[in-house]
């Protein structure tokens, strides 16, 4: 188990270094088109081959990881914070506060965001940079993704409020923010961390889907999502296994986080 955790740490560190050191590691710029080598198989010059436009797949993966690994956790942090706030308040106070918060969560879950996001894209200026487009996309995901997590947090908070140790704490005079900080938040940590880690891959995939609406990370900047979108074409995949590398990387990153998360939960 310890070896697995070490492997996870090493893998995450390596991924981080590779992503943020892409400028020095990547064999070419992510936008550079080698037009004589479109859709090339892996070679010494292009270890993961090239995409349909002749762009180096390794370079695009490294820069794509940088975009997704920087922005998806930030969006997950935002969404988890909102979930903790609204779910926590609902669970602690109960009554009309809980009903109001959960009504808001239900409303967010029932609204067809896909169509509203199209409207949002229409409202954005056309000449924004790919970086700004990426930031806006993940910000939107972070702002909209809290509702399901809030329901989980609310249920957890309600259970805690009914537990003996909280009754004891309240009898001992703990109330308000002190009760939340010392007794509720530490006991909700596992739930919140789980919601946080779950949100990261969800947001990466959601960004890929939003790309189909023109709301994702725009050309030529890559993201893990846009690289995964290439795999929509099932007919294309069979003879070219190197196209699976982005999804493999995503699975490895998420699994590594899960391995470390389990360790955290054990400690809690």
């Amino acid at each position: 188990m310890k070896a697995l955790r070490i492997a996870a740490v090493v893998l995450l560190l390596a991924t981080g270094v590779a992503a943020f050191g892409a400028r020095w590691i990547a064999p070419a710029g992510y936008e550079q088109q080698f037009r004589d080598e479109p859709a090339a198989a892996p070679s010494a010059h292009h270890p993961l081959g090239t995409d349909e436009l002749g762009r180096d797949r390794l370079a695009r993966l490294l820069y794509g990881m940088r975009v997704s690994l920087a922005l998806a956790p930030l969006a997950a942090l935002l969404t988890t914070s909102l979930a903790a706030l609204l779910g926590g308040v609902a669970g602690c106070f109960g009554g009309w506060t809980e009903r109001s918060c959960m009504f808001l969560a239900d409303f967010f879950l029932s609204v067809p965001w896909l169509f509203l996001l199209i409207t949002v894209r229409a409202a954005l200026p056309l000449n924004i940079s790919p970086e700004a487009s990426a930031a806006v996309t993940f910000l939107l995901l972070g702002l909209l993704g809290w509702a399901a997590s809030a329901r989980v947090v609310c249920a957890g908070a309600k259970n805690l409020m009914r537990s003996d140790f909280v009754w004891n704490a309240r009898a001992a005079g703990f109330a308000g923010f002190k009760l939340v900080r010392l007794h509720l938040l530490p006991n909700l940590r596992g739930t919140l961390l789980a919601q946080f880690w779950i949100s990261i891959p969800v947001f990466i995939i959601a960004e890929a889907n939003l790309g189909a609406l023109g709301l994702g990370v725009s050309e030529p900047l890559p993201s893990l999502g846009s690289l995964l979108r290439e795999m929509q074409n099932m007919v294309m995949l069979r003879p070219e296994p190197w196209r699976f590398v982005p999804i493999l990387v995503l699975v490895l990153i998420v699994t590594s986080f899960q391995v470390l998360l389990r360790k955290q939960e054990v400690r809690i």
Partner: protein
Amino acid sequence: MKRLAVWCVALVLSGLPAAAQSGGELRFCLRSEPKTFNPLAADDDASGAVRYLTGGVLVRVNRITQKAQPELATEWKVSESGKRISFKLRDGLRYSDGTPFSADDVAYTMQQLMDPALHSSTGDAFRSGEGAVSTRVISPTAIEINFPAPVANLANLFDTVAIVSSKSPLKEMAALGPFYVAEHKPGSYILLKRNPGYWKKDASGRPLPYVDAVRLDIEQNPDIEALRYRRGEIHLINTVSPAVFEKLSEENAALVRDAGTSTDTEQIWFNQVPGAPIPAYKQAWFSSTAFRRAVSEAINRNDLARIVYHGHATAAIGIVPASNKFWFNSELKPHPYDTGSALRRLQQEGFRLDNGTLRDKTGNAVEFSIITNAGSRTRESMAAMIQEDLKKIGIKVNVVPLDFNSLLERINQTHDYEACLLGFVNGDLDPNSVMTVWLSSGDEHAWNPKQKSPATAWEAEIDKMMRGQASALDERKRKEYWDKVQRIAWEHEPFIFLVNKDTLVAISPSVKNAQPSILPPQAYWNIEELALAH
């Protein structure tokens, strides 16, 4: 001895014409549910496909020769300077429900088609001027149709007019074409069965069509359609993407066919609408012919054709591709890919390169966005390549894929865009079919639509030529006018035409007599003659 006899029979059978292999169910997919089964109201591709398979028309444009040929009408004559067409009809024909066909049905069809309440795009093609379209039934097999103003290319327009019955209780569901709609499960499939009353026979006297039924499965996802084709669940795909074409071709070259350069175009254009919500200095760039020509010369069209279309496209020359045999202006040559020439044009116009950034006379960095429809892999790829090409002359391009409705709203209503990459599907070869694109007052005059008067001298000249060709009856004269329009458009490049893609189809080797065409419906235009090998 017995084995020898079996071999002999097999050998004889294999030598028989495809007609001997009639029967069976031909299966392929429609990308969406047909919006209507009324052939006169068919506007979308799926409804058009059902109309093609079930409708009987007076005249059919042969998709290979590109010439009109008799169908329900044995002969026709255009007179009164293009304001009248007279048809002589086949005698003794019946609809799929047994109702007899006569000239009254043609009169009824025209009356229904021209009813403004129907909002038929097929009917719009006949609206040449103010006034009603009238018909005169001379006999059960003769009719003349009168129009208030001359209609160019009149006979060919009847290729899309399916004649509906005036007397059948089934109304428009009674078919005169090779098949009739026998079953429809919304969202799933449409089953067409052989029309027992269909009149056509092959050279040996066998009744057509050869297949007993056509099953049209509704399948929106082209990847799943390709997988189903590979598995042998469907017999053909009317058009396939270049990437899928290549993959299928690698597996078995007999699975796909390149029918040649299509008449469709892919182009970018700049927004030249006065008052559009874009800065004045950008409007000045976009209105400059030199700027547009420079952008055009900086785009490597051959790379677009080779990389995005896997070589199944050719660099576009202008409005009309060479595959449009009669109407193409063969004097025009492709715009060269020449970044040096592009920069010289820009410098003459006051632009300058400053540390790799192109700046205009007043120092503004040249940057614009290209919108295109999200989800179109070929257009998104072309936009990314154009982005890279224009970087070489210091222009920064932002690629913005938008969902199609937002895109149309920006192009047609708000005019809130700078440049757009889209394509035209040209099912009709005649210049009359693109009147609304080229007339400055036209709705589809994309770069500056619905002008009250032409904004530029060259647009006024195009208007003059387009009206000239529409009112001329002599085809050579019309060609002269249309050649001039092509020349003006080539010189001023309001549309920067990029590539003419090839028509790529997938037809199973088990389908006999297939002759894919560049005109729609590409794979099954000769549906009556298609046969299945058992």
